[in-house]
Structures are given as C-alpha cells and as structure tokens.
C-alpha cells in the first residue's frame, strides 16, 4: 500500500512539473519534455498500478505488443511525412 501511495505522489509531482514546464518558453523542446513526462507517468502507472512490476513475462510481452505496433504505425508514417520536400508538404499546410 505504501508503494501505491508513493506512486501517486510521484504522479502528482510529474503533473505539477509538466504544467510548470509549459509556462517556460522551451521552443522546440517543449513537446519532447511534455511527452517525456507523460511517458514517465505511464511507466509508473503500468509498473505499479497495473502491477506489471510483478507480472509474468508473458503478460509483459502482451502489454508491450500494443505499444510496439503503435511505434510501427508512427515510425513508418513519419518515414514519409518527415522527409517530404517543402513544396509537397505545403500541399498539406496551405489550402
């Protein structure tokens, strides 16, 4: 039970941190920072609230599978979008 309360305290601390960070002009780093904090929160929730820290390997693999396929979706899509020439990209950004 102490572990659950500590996890909760850490989650609230990370929430304060991410809201505070959004007021600092970090420019291009703003998105990576907020996503990094969200990933840390997710790791805490999955490890302790969802009990993956003491789950069997099979359960952990099943939990990782969804994120693996999501990573494939994002990386293959951006292997196109990220390398488009600006004139092709403007097809999307200007009506």
């Amino acid at each position, binding site marked *: *039970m102490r572990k*659950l*309360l500590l*996890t*909760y305290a850490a*989650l*609230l601390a990370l*929430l304060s941190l*991410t*809201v505070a960070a*959004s007021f600092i002009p970090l420019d291009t780093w*703003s*998105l990576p920072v*907020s*996503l990094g*904090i*969200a990933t840390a*929160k*997710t790791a805490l*929730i*999955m490890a*302790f*609230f*969802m009990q993956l820290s003491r*789950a*069997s390997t*099979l*359960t952990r693999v*099943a*939990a990782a*599978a*969804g*994120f693996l*396929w*999501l990573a494939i*979706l*994002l990386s293959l*899509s*951006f292997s196109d*979008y*990220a390398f488009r020439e600006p004139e092709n*990209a403007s097809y*999307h*950004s200007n*009506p």
Partner: protein
Amino acid sequence: MKEAQNAVRMQFEALDQQKQADTLGMWIFLATEVLFFGGMFMAYAAYRWFNPDVFVLASKELNLLAGSINTAVLLSSSLTMALADHFIHAGNKTNAQRLLTLTISLGLVFLLIKGYEYHEEYSHGLIPFINDQFQWEHGQADRAELFFNLYFLMTGMHALHLFLGCCLLTVMLFINRGRRTLFRPQMRIKLSALYWHFVDVVWVFLFPLFYLAR
C-alpha cells in the same frame, strides 16, 4: 479450500492458471485499445507536424486550469482503484467497496468538469460540427478546425471509455454485495482496475498534446 476449487472454471486445472489466462486476455484487449486510440494519435501527429503554429494557437483556447484539475482527479481515481484492488485481495471487502464508490465518484467528477469545458468551448463558438459559425480570428481557420475536431473526437472517445468504466465498476459494486467468498470478486476487480488505469494512461497523453501545446 473447496470454495477455491469451485472458483476454477472447467477449462482450467488450477486457480493460478486461470488467473494468468484472465490477466493475459485483458492485456490483449488493452493492446487493441492502444491501437484504437493509436490511429487517432497518428492523425494528431501528422496534422500537428504540418501545422505546428496553428495547433499552438488553438491549444491556448482550451481551459488549462480545468484540464490540470481533471488530470489530478483522474490520477486520484487510479489511486483509489489500485487501493480497492489492494483491499479486496487482502480480504477487506468493506474498504474495497468504499474505494470503488469513491473511484466511480471521481470518474463522474471528471466527466462533469469535461462537460463544463465542452459547454465553455461551445459558448466560445469553438465546436466546428455544432456551432453554426466557427469562431476563429487568427487565420488558417480550417486548420484550427482540424485541431478542435481532433480534440472533441479524442477527448470524447476518452470520456465514453471513462463512462463505460464507471458503469463497469457500478456493476462490480452490486455483484460483490452479496458475496461472502472473494475469489471471483478479486479477479473481476483486478481486471476492471486494468481497464480503469488504461483509460487514465490515455488521458496522460491527451493532456499534454491538447492543453500543453502552448
């Protein structure tokens, strides 16, 4: 011990094996849910990639205070859910039932605050598919509409999941009431908790992407 044996369904040899199978099944379902939301996250990522400035401007229109409070409410509901799971496995049904009620209440508080936000955005003319005239004065209005369409689609789907979570927990509350043995309730609460925490994880990403793009 006899009760423990009765709790094992016919296709399993032992309670432990059944628990493993139940947990695995729930995680596979959650993986499909990751991909369900994943498609929408992909759409968000692509449109933000091509329209970074408009997304930042549009994000400033959302109510950051309400969003932050809602994040705290949802994280708290995850704690009470995890504690309910803890207590039912420790054999303390009274505490578990109380914590379940608290979890449902926090879920409803989240939905109320979300509803208040939707109303606020409606009165500001920011709902592209309901407001007759989308109110946007910063240029590239069609791109801003994209942001708000994604916002309402993704937070709406999340709210629907949360509402179903509240229904699920309410059912758990009632079917646990008359039970003296806790083998089945323990497993049901564990699986419901997994679903509840998953919905929390979705919000953990929605919050920075929509509210903190400023």
